[in-house]
C-alpha cells in the first residue's frame, strides 16, 4: 500500500491523470456552483419502489450505455489503431432485434427476454464480424470500413420491425431499464459493473490484453511471434458487438420503445471521445479500459452540469466542445513532454541549490 502511494507520488497516475483531473475539476466546479449538487435522496417512485435519486445517480445511470460502448471501443482502438463509428447504428439494429423477439411472442416473460437478448447479441456480433472482417482481412481503414454500417445501419434497424417506433411494455423491461423491485440502485449501473467485471476476469485469466496490445503496437512483429493478428482484430470487433448488444438493450429498456432514428444517436463520437479522454492512444497499442470508463462519466457529468446550469439549447454543444478541446490539448503528447521538461528543470534547479548548500 505504502509502496503504491509512493509510486503514485513519484510517477503520477500515468495514463489516468487527465481523466481523473477532469472529473475532479468538474466536481469542484459543481460544488462551488451548488453545494447540494451531489446530494442523494431516497424517493418512492410511481411503481412503489424506494429508489436513489439525485444528480450523481443521473450521471452514473445516464452514462451506462456510453461506458459499456467505451470499453469495447477501447479494445478495437488498441488492436486496430482506428475506431468503429457504426456503434450507434449497430445498437439500433441490436435494439430492434431485441424488440422483434419480444413482440413475436404472445407475452413477455423472463424466458423471452433472455431469448431476445441472446438474439440481439448474435445479430450484433454478426455485424461486428462484418466490420471486423473488412478491417482485419481486407485491411480497410476502420473508419472507412465502419462507415458502411454507419450509413445503412439505421435503415436496417427500421427494416427489422417495420413500424417507426414500436413499443414494448412489461415489468421485466422496466426492471432492466429502471429499477429491480427492492433494489434502490438503477439496473443499468449494475449492468455496467457486470460488464466491467467480465473484462477484468477475461484480462486476468487470458492473454487477450497482452495480445491486443502487441498487435496494436506492431502487427507484423506480433505475427512473427506467433500471434494471429487477423484473429485478434476480428475478435476485438466481435467483443465490441457484444457491448453494442448490451447498450442497445439498455437503451430500449429505459423507455420500452425503440426509435431507430434516435436510439443512442451520435454515441459513437462520445464513445471515441471517452477513449481519448481516458488517455488511450487512438493510434492503437497500449490501453487502459478503466480510463475510458472514467472518460464516459466525464462526458456525462459535463452534459448534466450544462443541463443543471440551464445553458440554452443552442449553446450546449459549443460549451461541451470548449471543455473537450481543453482536455484533449492538455492530454496531448506535446503538452505532456513540455510539462515533463518543466518539472525536470525545477528538480535539477532544486538539486543544484542543495548541492550549493552543501558546499
Amino acid at each position, binding site marked *: 500500500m505504502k509502496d503504491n502511494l509512493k509510486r503514485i507520488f513519484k510517477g503520477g497516475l500515468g495514463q489516468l491523470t487527465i481523466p481523473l483531473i477532469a472529473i475532479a475539476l468538474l466536481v469542484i466546479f459543481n460544488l462551488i456552483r451548488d453545494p447540494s449538487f451531489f446530494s442523494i435522496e431516497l424517493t418512492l417512485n410511481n411503481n412503489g419502489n424506494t429508489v436513489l435519486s439525485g444528480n450523481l445517480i443521473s450521471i452514473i445511470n445516464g452514462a451506462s450505455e456510453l461506458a459499456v460502448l467505451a470499453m469495447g471501443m477501447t479494445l478495437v482502438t488498441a488492436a486496430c489503431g482506428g475506431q468503429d463509428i457504426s456503434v450507434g447504428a449497430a445498437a439500433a439494429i441490436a435494439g430492434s432485434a431485441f424488440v422483434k423477439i419480444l413482440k413475436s411472442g404472445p407475452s413477455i416473460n423472463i424466458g423471452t427476454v433472455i431469448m431476445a437478448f441472446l438474439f440481439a447479441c448474435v445479430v450484433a456480433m454478426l455485424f461486428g464480424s462484418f466490420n471486423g472482417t473488412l478491417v482485419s482481412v481486407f485491411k480497410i481503414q476502420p473508419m472507412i470500413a465502419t462507415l458502411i454500417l454507419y450509413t445503412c445501419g439505421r435503415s436496417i434497424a427500421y427494416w427489422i420491425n417495420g413500424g417507426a417506433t414500436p413499443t414494448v411494455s412489461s415489468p421485466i423491461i422496466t426492471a432492466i431499464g429502471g429499477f429491480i423491485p427492492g433494489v434502490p440502485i438503477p439496473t443499468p449501473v449494475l449492468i455496467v459493473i457486470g460488464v466491467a467485471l467480465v473484462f477484468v476476469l477475461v484480462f486476468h485469466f487470458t492473454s487477450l490484453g497482452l495480445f491486443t496490445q502487441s498487435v496494436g503496437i506492431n502487427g507484423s512483429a506480433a505475427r512473427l511471434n506467433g500471434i494471429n493478428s487477423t484473429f485478434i482484430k476480428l475478435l476485438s470487433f466481435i467483443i465490441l458487438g457484444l457491448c453494442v448488444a448490451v447498450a442497445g438493450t439498455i437503451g430500449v429498456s429505459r423507455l420500452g420503445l425503440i426509435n431507430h432514428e*434516435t436510439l443512442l444517436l451520435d454515441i459513437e463520437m462520445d464513445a471515441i471521445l471517452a477513449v481519448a479522454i481516458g488517455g488511450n492512444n487512438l493510434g492503437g497499442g497500449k490501453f487502459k479500459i478503466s480510463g475510458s470508463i472514467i472518460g464516459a462519466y466525464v462526458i456525462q457529468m459535463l452534459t448534466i452540469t450544462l*443541463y443543471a446550469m440551464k445553458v440554452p*439549447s443552442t449553446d450546449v454543444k459549443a460549451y461541451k466542445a470548449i471543455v473537450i478541446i481543453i482536455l484533449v490539448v492538455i492530454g496531448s503528447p506535446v503538452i505532456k513532454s513540455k510539462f515533463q521538461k518543466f518539472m525536470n528543470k525545477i528538480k535539477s534547479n532544486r538539486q543544484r541549490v542543495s548541492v550549493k548548500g552543501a558546499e
Partner: protein
Amino acid sequence: MTKKKFGSLLLVASLVTTLLFSACTTGGAGNAGGSSSKGTIKVGVVNNPPSESGYREANVKDMEAVFSAANGYELKTAYSLKNDEQLQAAQGFITEGVDYLLISAAETTGWDEVLKKAKEAGIKVFLFDRMIDVDESLYEAAVVSDMSKEGETAVNWLLAQNLDEYNVIHIQGAMGSDAQIGRTGALDAQFASGKMNKVVQQTATWDEAEAKKIVESVINSGDDFNVIYAENDGMAKGAVAALDEAGISHGINGKVVVMGFDCNKWALRELKAGNWNYDGQCSPFQAQIISDIIQGKKTVTSKKIINEEKGFDAKTLTDDDINTYGLGE
C-alpha cells in the same frame, strides 16, 4: 491448413450475408403499378421513404389506400431521401406519362426544370407535406401542415385549463426543423408575455432518452414545475419516465400536465389511460384532399391548402379517435 481455409470461408460467408442484409433495405425505389386499363387515373407519387418516421409511414400507407385500384387509380411510387434521386424519379414518371404528379420533396430547391417539363407534358402537379421554392403557376395546389398553428392550438388548450400558475418544462425537437420552429413559437410568445413561466427550455433533438435526462436534471435541482410541453410523443414518453422514477404524479388528476405531438397510437393510448393530458396532431393524411380536387369534388381557392389538424384532450378522447387519427400500431 484446412482449418485456416475454413476460417476464411466463414469470414467471407458472414461478410456476404451482412452485405445482403444491407442491400435489401437500400432497394425499393420505383414500384411500378400493374398494367393500365382504360379509365384509370395514373398518379405518380414522389415521396420520402416510409422508414423516415412514423409520420411518413402513415403518409405512405394513406397514399396507397386512397389512390387504390378500387378508387379508380393506378399508383406509381418512388421513395428517396435524396433530392437528385427524387428528381430522376419525377422525370421518369413524366416520361412514362402519368396524369398527376404528387411530390413531397427532400429539398426545397432544384425543382424548376422538372415541373416545367411536367407542365409542358400536360401533367398536373400537387405538392404535399412540404413546400417547394418554385413559381405558384407550376403546381395546382400544395396541401401542407401549419406547424405554428399546431403550437397555437396546443398553447390555447393549455391556457383553457386555467391553472393557477404555469411553470413549464419545454423540451424542443431538433433545432431549426420546421416542427420545432412552429411548435416553439406559440409557447415562446407566452413566456415573453409573462403569462407562463419558463422553468427550462432545452432541445433533446427528438431523442427520448435525452428528454428524460433533461427532466431529471430539473427534478434534481428542486425547481417547481407543473407542465411538460414536449414537441413530440417520444420525448414526452422520456419526460414521463423521469417523473415516474421520481415519484411525481402526472396526467388527469396528476400534479404535472403532460403534452406531446404527432398522435402516435401508443401515445393516444397513454392519453386514454389518463397518464398524459394532450396530444397535438400532425396530420399525414393529405391524399383524400388531393383525390377530391382531382375528381372535382373540391375546388381550389388558394394554392396553399392548410390541412386541418386537431388537438386531443385526454378527457374527451374516444377509441374511435385513436383508430382514425393514431399513427403506427
